[in-house]
């Protein structure tokens, strides 16, 4: 197990290098540069000033030098400076990454919980009205665009019922104390986490249902039943646990995609995450921030997948023995 963690660390390092090289190349290939954007915004036309800015941004050097310098600085834990935001890249990202992670983990939590419960019910009550309703709901939430769902939830719960806030992460100017603050964030989190979570819940429902049905048909389940175990015990101890592996795999894979999916939800709910930061930075060719976001997200996803692998060990002893 120790060896595999060390192996994983090496994989993470090479992953980060890969992320840097690939994204740096892609940004270099896109027409227009940060200099174009900044000078157009600031109406700079004086050749001397242009040259000064070019030097300030480090754009006067060949691309390969910029890349090597950047890679070196990342591994010395420095993500560079963003002239557009007038602040160190790390500060900018770290101000917004936690809220994205919170949203991401909550919505995945919602998705896994709802999805597993719905999937188990659908598989146990297969081909009944329960199954039909759950499957239909799954198809609906899978097909409905998340931004549309988000706006519908806002209109219903925030505008008409006035139960929940329209957007943001906290009540601005609110003074609640620590416990009140947590409650306040939870209130703001409900709608965005639901909008994002329901989409993924749909996927988990389908996977869980299929996986459960498959395990139900296996011999050891028949044995368990023959032993006279209660129905609940068969479902929970035998089928559920064995049906869980595909869901855990999916969970690991989705940590990456949820980060992308949250861009839309952050826009709809004005959630202060890194989604819009990333979008703006790509549009303005602000490569230190783009790369910084990707590097940090890569680390998050890699660590999450490492945890998923550890979960595998717990769930399935056969993997441990390999």
């Amino acid at each position: 197990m120790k060896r595999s963690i060390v192996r994983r660390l090496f994989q993470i390092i090479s992953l980060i290098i890969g992320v840097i090289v690939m994204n740096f190349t892609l940004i270099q290939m896109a027409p227009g540069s940060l200099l174009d954007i900044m000078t157009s915004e600031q109406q700079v036309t004086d050749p001397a000033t242009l040259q000064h800015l070019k030097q300030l941004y480090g754009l006067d050097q060949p691309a390969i030098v910029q890349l090597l310098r950047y890679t070196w600085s990342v591994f010395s834990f420095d993500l560079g400076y963003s002239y557009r935001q007038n602040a160190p890249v790390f500060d900018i990202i770290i101000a917004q990454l936690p809220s994205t992670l919170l949203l991401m983990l909550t919505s995945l939590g919602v998705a896994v919980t709802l999805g597993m419960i719905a999937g188990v019910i659908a598989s146990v009550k297969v081909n009944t009205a329960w199954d039909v309703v759950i499957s239909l709901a799954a198809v609906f939430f899978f097909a409905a665009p998340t931004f549309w769902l988000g706006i519908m939830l806002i209109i219903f719960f925030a505008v008409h019922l006035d139960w929940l806030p329209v957007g943001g992460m906290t009540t601005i100017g609110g003074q609640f104390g620590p416990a009140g603050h947590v409650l306040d964030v939870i209130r703001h989190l409900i709608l965005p986490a639901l909008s994002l979570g329901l989409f993924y819940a749909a996927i988990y429902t389908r996977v869980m249902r299929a996986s459960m049905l498959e395990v139900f048909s296996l011999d050891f389940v028949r044995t368990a039943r023959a032993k006279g175990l209660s129905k609940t015990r068969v479902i929970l101890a035998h089928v559920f646990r064995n049906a869980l592996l595909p869901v855990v795999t999916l969970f690991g894979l989705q940590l990456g995609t949820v980060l992308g999916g949250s861009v839309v939800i952050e826009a709809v709910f004005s959630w202060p995450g890194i989604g819009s930061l990333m979008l703006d930075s790509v549009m303005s060719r602000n490569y230190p921030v783009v790369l910084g976001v990707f590097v940090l997200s890569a680390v998050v996803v890699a660590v999450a997948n490492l945890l998923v692998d550890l979960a595998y060990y717990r769930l399935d002893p056969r993997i441990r023995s390999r």
Partner: protein
Amino acid sequence: MTSHINRRVFLGTSALAAIAAGTSLGFPSALAQGTPKKGGVLIATWGGFEPQAVFVPGGGGSSPLISSTKILEPLLRQDSQAGFLPVLATEVKPSADFKSYDIVLRKGVTWHDGKPFTADDVVFSIEKYWLQTIAKAALKNLSGAEVTEGGVRVSFKEPTPEFFFKSVLATSLVIPKHVYDGSEIVTNPANNAPIGTGPFKFKQWVRGSHIEYAANHKYWDAGKPYLNGLVMRYWRDAASRTAALEADELQLGIFNPIPTPDIDRLSKSGKFVASTDGYLGAAWASTIEFNSRRDVVKDPAVRRALLTAIDRATISDVVYFGRAKPGTSFVSSTNPKFYNPNLPRYEFDAKKAAKMLDDAGYPKKGKSRFKVHLLAAGWFEENGKVGQFVKQNLEDIGVEVTLTVPDRATSLKQIYGDYDYDIALSNYAARVELVPQQTDYLSTSGIVKGAAFRNATGYSNPEVDDIVAKMSVESDEAKRKDLAFKLQEIAARDLPITVLVELIPTTMMSKKVKGVGNRADISADSLSDAWLDV
């Protein structure tokens, strides 16, 4: 409008008078109704994204203009009648030869950190900030700024028109010397938490969400601001802004904050007001530019024919839902000082346009006359749609069109860096004063490769250059107007660039928001007069 470009920015802010009656869509211009009430926190937003920094010294576009002007102030401001009102300066007096100006400064003003505001701050701002960054072109004749008894004297090598100079003063922010002296202004950390003289103090910026302002209780304009605080919130999604207005989590949205169809729906509910007041200082237009370096479109006769082929009324109605109107000059029709209404109009007439092309020597050979590359710049979503209409119109008269809609960075590079287009569909936001910003689109000196939002068409005409040179030093207002009229005649004849449609930006606000009218540019307004009627 989801993006924002930054033409106004070289002067930091833009200002000028609104002909409220002319542009207002049924909104009474008397906004100071009732007695202002104190208290409350106003939550405001605009139709674009959060700024890159709270204050961007170089300008940085509409978003930092909105966020910084609550804290930092100019010397003058302009109202919707084209008049200049005092802010940090109480008086600006030209000398008899218009070669120097005496600026009398307001007394008893302090910066938010408690230090007194002095003439040194103004001289520092002019020399180290305006001259280096935002007003380099506008102040190129400046010979010096010195502290005098009552304020500051600014001297010029050439006569400098009063309206022109006051426009510069009304759109350039004064920054504190003690904070910025000796540092790189562009990267000073204070730009993320500015210290100013304005009615609101910077309190907190939650990146990705909002900027919080607290009332400045030591504001020089005693009794103001009326609000206890101000919050600028940022939603990326326009439909969410509508929902926030309806849920009363947002009270003021400037510059097209919500989807156009929602404007009428909310106005009809009786709880909201839609206003078009306050955009004269940033008269937004969608423009069409013809590349003079390209074979076919370098011929003015062809340009006139192509413009005649474009159905601008339909574009205004369909793409902009009626919140735009066909342009008639290179200068906005809302410009109270310089707009020339008696120019040749290129009314939509496809048959006439076809005939004009025949006459210009481009008859149909087979199916088409010639090919053009039409570039719709990607700063606004609408431009792509306008591009589709223009493409269709031109193809109807036998012009083959390749339409591209590149993203913002690519558009900048293709139009202003590589000059790689035949016809460009772009935008500008113009102030009332034409020099130097708008004249840079026409003059030879405006051709600077790689510099955005100026002469990219390569149009060069000695007559135009002469008029622009005269406008820069002519102190007689009537003569300046004549020059501006002549300039528009030439522009309408040669058509290097012209306004395709004039946009009508809209402010959407809750009925309880008062005191935000009578401004030339609502984006740059400090909101010191705003109050909540609750």
